């Protein structure tokens, strides 16, 4: 379905995740973050870039992977994106949330 984000029409699924990553840019990301009560800082963007990089390489996302990458420590990750950090950060990053086969 379509949603207006940062003054443009973006395709999102029922949970608000972008369906087409090509429609994402920083303004879209910033607006999505604000909708979830998050004000984006440089550290927030570092994490978003890391997640988008993994997505484009089709590599799975996990807390352990984030810890190992050194992009951020996990306690900080939870405080930057409170309430299900992987769920939140992937939504803001314009990529699908981590999923299983069903």
């Amino acid at each position, binding site marked *: 379905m379509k949603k207006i984000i940062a003054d443009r029409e973006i395709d999102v*699924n029922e949970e608000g995740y972008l369906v087409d990553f090509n429609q994402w840019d920083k303004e879209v990301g910033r607006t999505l973050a604000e909708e979830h009560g998050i004000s984006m800082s440089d550290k927030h963007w570092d994490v978003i870039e890391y997640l988008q990089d993994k997505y484009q390489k089709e*590599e799975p996302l996990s807390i352990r992977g984030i810890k190992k990458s050194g992009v951020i420590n996990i306690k900080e*990750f939870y405080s930057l994106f409170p309430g299900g950090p*992987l*769920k939140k950060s992937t939504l803001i990053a314009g990529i699908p949330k*981590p999923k*299983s086969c*069903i």
Partner: protein
Amino acid sequence: MKNLVILGAGTSGTMMANHLVSSLPKKDWKISIVDQFKTHYYQPGFLFLPFDIYTTKQVKKKGSKFLPKGVSYIQEKIDLIEPESNKVLLADGQELPYDILIVATGTKTVPEEIEGMKGPKWYKNIFDFYTYEGAKALRDKFRTWEGGKLVVHITEMPIKCPVAPLEFAFLADSYFKNKGMRDKVDITFVTPLDGAFTKPRATEALHYLLEEKDIKEVTDFNIERVDHENNKIIDYADTEVEYDLLVTVPTNMGDPLLERSGLGDDLNYIPTNKATLQSTDHENIFAIGDATNIPASKAGSVAHFEAEILTDNILRYINGKELKEDFDGHANCFIETGGGKALLIDFNYTTEPVEGTFPFPGVGPLRLLKESRMNHMGKLAFRWIYWNMLLKGVPIPFVDAKMSEKGKQLEKTQ
């Protein structure tokens, strides 16, 4: 004489040995297969062992029985792969030169990755069922367990057989009902994902199973450690889940051989082209099954579909032809739901599991994303198919390597 070496004689390695022995000319190619273990396990059977649905005999056999004549079988630990010199070093000092290498070393559970998991309570009130030893120990525990809080838990993704933990919870519900003690058992499903189901069609079709079976969900749980003294698992947000009996799927990682050889990613999986199954770093190395890093499920059916395509691509490589980007991530899996019923899902990289019939439109006889007794028969029959057809590289009739759209309700009708 050229050498083709297969590392690992599990599901994938054995299938490739059988496919290739009939495709490669004997006078030109020597095929060798190496595995440190002589026992071949039917891993889908581990789910049934804790519930006394299968016996230990039914889930293991001598692996060499399934390897074809004409393939040289070496039972030895593999020390190192040296891609720069095209050879493999074994623990006993043997060197195996190769012209083509197939990595089929699978994935294993590593409970040591989480603090407190493999401690003094391991196999006392903390179990896995992803190993023969774990499933057997859990069977013995369940036989005399008098009830309490049963927590079924996933450490992190990816895991092989991603539906198995849910199947376990469903079968546990039936098992304790049959024993007349379901009211004494509290079952909670704990996952790092945001639901027991994460795909929209599956969630809509199947969420009722959790309610019907009174299985509680704790989601977005990223385990940091197990407090085995106080019987609880704790995540990075300091959320705690108490248990009397913890059945966990530990971190899954590829074989340490890949780390030693500098060929693995941070989970020890070998970077592989998801459509051709060729290594992304060495053109004469190919990979199949759980050992790869491709975004397909880690499941036996996936390896079966890959085997056909990989065999074709190896022949193309040998003949200097371009490889075909034919693998579409196809997986086909039965999911036990307890009470003598099961679901079937059939999907690939781009199509999520949807309702429909399989393999024939309308006629079926199997139903996709819906419980049926026929599906459960299919799951049980599969053990015979595994040992007698799949491992030997015999194609399954009417089921192609690439996923078919026939019989699938791709668009949900409102």
